[in-house]
């Protein structure tokens, strides 16, 4: 079967590593990765726990398709209680680390307690031990990976680590693996840092060998790969432009939140688009984009590898940024660019390099910079406080802020708190573009109504990856819906959220869902997991996960009041483009959503709903 049937429990306080059998009864109900790890988490952790205390736990989890030949089958997730939001946090990453962990024979690692000193976990198949990380503390994720590979004398070891942001208490620190893949959101890296855990290094040579119906599984993966190859989005658009295929499209429809969401269109969108990444720079005659890039097992390859002009002001004295590295995805190009009015493609790329290098979420970081620039424009924050002139559009401020935040210097300490805490401190909480304390990403709810409902209800705070109704509202996948309409969006969102829960629990990437439906996932899961996995069971699994996460958040203190969008999106109408005059109708959609979910008017799952889902 696809599961390794073994979990590693690491008690950081005691310094012990123990093997446990995977709870197969739970595996049948929660599949793996997001679902199964969240089940373990809610069973073991008090929802009221301080996220940065030793009592919080952190789980790194693979799915049953991780480490197999299923396309995109290399994913792992990190589940914990997030310090940015105080809600359940679940961040998903690709690269090669997840598959390596599975090939070492582990479905997941549960970290508990707090180490008295910096350590890293070293795994070589069934051998796991905590090692001193004094020499790694203070290092970037890039240096950490290099040093571990040298120390182990093994270039094939895979490393997942935190950078200086995670050590310095930046509340949105990532965990970065394979140099530029990240479990990005909600501050899972901050939790890792709070436990004095610097890195996890894995080498797995056992492989995945227990699938009984190997032939059936291989046939299912081949058929599913063909679906991806034949689809215009996964077969052509994403490989060529990456998610950056969206920049011009979303801008033209008037749904690109610009300058801290004061506007919905950015005049510099073209300059920072996927198309622009292909074009030769006037300065050195080279294109920003070097090539596209795949994570483990991925036949889409949406990843970007970029290189900036060595003469660019941001790198002219820093040769370490001269080489090729992880380039801009759409959300990051938006958050580092449109959200603060910067149209300098190389500056955004370097800011993105810094986010990878020191492990911080570019969405929250960029959106926080946007809020700071608005405060600067209003005269609330000054150059003396910030250390740099910070009007909207300043690439210099963006780069300075990235360094300062990653290194915990000067105003960077405050930027590291995220926009909610920062704007509250300076008396303008209305300028924080967040839900449950987390910044929303690159789609304006005034122009795309369904995704606004998605932000408001996402269990990890504002997020596009929990229910990507944009697929329907913009691309017509699986059916076209009017982005300006609120009718029917509650049901649409619920369907997206539930299906996503199944994908996030399988070990595959949610980007497959541009082409795959649950039917394509079902054949692969069913053959890998020894049958009994119908489409209905997978959809119900997603719904069960959603409600389980909701129960955790409710118990942590969240209420219906927290299912809301920033006031700006509800009261300041879009000023240009096809969206002109519109605001978000989130309040209209919310009662319909609660009803569709089987929740009461306060957003609490009813007894009937819980009984139906076996919760």
């Amino acid at each position: 079967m696809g599961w390794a049937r073994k979990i590693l429990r690491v008690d950081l306080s005691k310094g012990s590593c123990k093997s446990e059998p995977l709870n197969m009864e739970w595996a049948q109900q929660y599949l793996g990765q997001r679902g199964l790890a969240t089940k373990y988490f809610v069973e073991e952790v008090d929802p009221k726990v301080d996220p940065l205390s030793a009592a919080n736990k952190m789980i790194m989890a693979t799915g049953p398709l991780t480490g197999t030949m299923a396309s995109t089958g290399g994913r792992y997730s990190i589940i914990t209680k997030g310090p940015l939001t105080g809600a359940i946090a679940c961040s998903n990453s690709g690269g090669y680390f997840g598959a390596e962990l599975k090939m070492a024979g582990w479905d997941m690692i549960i970290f508990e307690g707090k180490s008295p000193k910096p350590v890293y976990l070293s795994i070589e198949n069934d051998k796991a031990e905590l090692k001193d990380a004094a020499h790694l503390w203070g290092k970037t994720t890039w240096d950490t990976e290099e040093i571990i590979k040298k120390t182990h004398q093994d270039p094939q070891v895979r490393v997942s680590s935190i950078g200086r942001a995670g050590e310095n208490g930046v509340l949105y620190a990532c965990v970065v693996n394979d140099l530029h893949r990240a479990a990005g959101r909600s501050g899972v890296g901050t939790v890792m840092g709070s436990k004095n855990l610097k890195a996890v290094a894995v080498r797995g040579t056992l492989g995945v060998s227990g699938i009984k119906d190997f032939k059936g599984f291989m046939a299912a993966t081949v058929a599913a790969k063909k679906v991806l190859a034949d689809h215009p989005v996964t077969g052509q658009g994403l490989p060529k432009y990456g998610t950056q295929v969206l920049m011009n499209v979303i801008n033209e429809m008037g749904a690109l939140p610009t300058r801290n969401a004061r506007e919905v269109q950015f005049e510099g969108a073209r300059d920072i688009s996927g198309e622009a990444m292909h074009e030769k720079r006037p300065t050195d005659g080279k294109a920003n984009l070097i090539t596209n890039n795949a994570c483990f097992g991925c036949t889409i390859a949406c990843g970007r590898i970029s290189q900036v002009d060595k003469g660019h002001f941001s790198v002219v004295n820093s040769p370490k940024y001269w080489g090729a590295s992880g380039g801009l995805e759409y959300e990051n190009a938006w958050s580092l660019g449109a959200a603060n009015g910067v149209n300098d493609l190389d500056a955004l790329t370097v800011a993105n390099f810094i986010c990878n290098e020191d492990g911080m979420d570019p969405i929250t970081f960029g959106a926080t910079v946007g809020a700071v620039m608005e405060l600067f424009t209003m005269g609330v924050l000054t150059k003396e406080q910030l250390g740099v002139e910070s009007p909207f559009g300043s690439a210099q401020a963006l780069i300075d802020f990235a360094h300062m935040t990653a290194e915990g210097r000067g105003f960077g300490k405050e930027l590291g708190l995220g926009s909610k805490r920062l704007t509250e401190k300076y008396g303008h909480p209305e300028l924080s573009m967040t839900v449950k304390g987390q910044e929303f990403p690159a789609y304006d709810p005034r122009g795309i109504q369904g995704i606004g409902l998605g932000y408001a209800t996402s269990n990890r705070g504002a997020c596009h990856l929990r229910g990507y109704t944009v697929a329907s509202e913009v691309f017509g996948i699986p059916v076209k819906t009017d982005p300006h309409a609120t009718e029917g969006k509650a049901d649409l969102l619920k369907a997206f959220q539930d299906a996503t829960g199944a994908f996030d629990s399988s070990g595959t990437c949610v980007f497959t869902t541009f082409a795959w439906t649950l039917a394509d996932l079902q054949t692969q899961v069913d053959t890998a997991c020894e049958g009994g996995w119908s489409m209905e069971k997978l959809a119900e699994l997603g719904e069960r996960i959603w409600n389980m996460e909701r129960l955790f958040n409710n118990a942590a203190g969240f209420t219906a009041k927290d299912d809301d969008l920033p006031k700006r999106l509800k009261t300041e109408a879009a000023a240009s483009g096809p969206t002109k005059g519109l605001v978000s109708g989130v309040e209209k959609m919310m009662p319909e959503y609660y009803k569709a979910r089987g929740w009461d008017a306060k957003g609490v799952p009813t007894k009937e709903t819980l009984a139906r889902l076996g919760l």
Partner: protein
Amino acid sequence: MQKSLHIDPNKCTGCLQCEMACSYENYGMFNLSKSRIKVFAFEHEGRKVPYTCTQCADAWCMTACPVDAIRIDAATGAKVVHEDVCVGCKVCTIACPFGTVNYVADSGKVQKCDLCGGDPACASACPTGAITYVDADWTGLDKMRQWAGKTDTQPRASA
């Protein structure tokens, strides 16, 4: 017609489907450490390069083997390790200038690419055409076509 593996690194995305397919074909499991083809990442250049045995015509590994465990498959031209004969002395791993013959501690034998008997699993699994199995006498055909496309000796209707 003799065929050979042809690798075009420009098309490689680093997905490792080739390594997985190789391990599945030869060991019935998904295991990168059992693969006979490896993809190398040159991170700072943004390049990924698949690399495996080129099946030398005059193969150093075969010449070096003291027990004749490496023999030519007449159908494919592959230099194939016969595990029942191999004594695991590793001399072939020293003789091979390219590092593509490697010792397997689990079995006590060496392993190398054997072209899967004429239907290489890596080429079938590669989603981008970075690894193909083509006419052994015409591995340069793609490059020739590219350069041919750059010649401009005839007037074109649309010019």
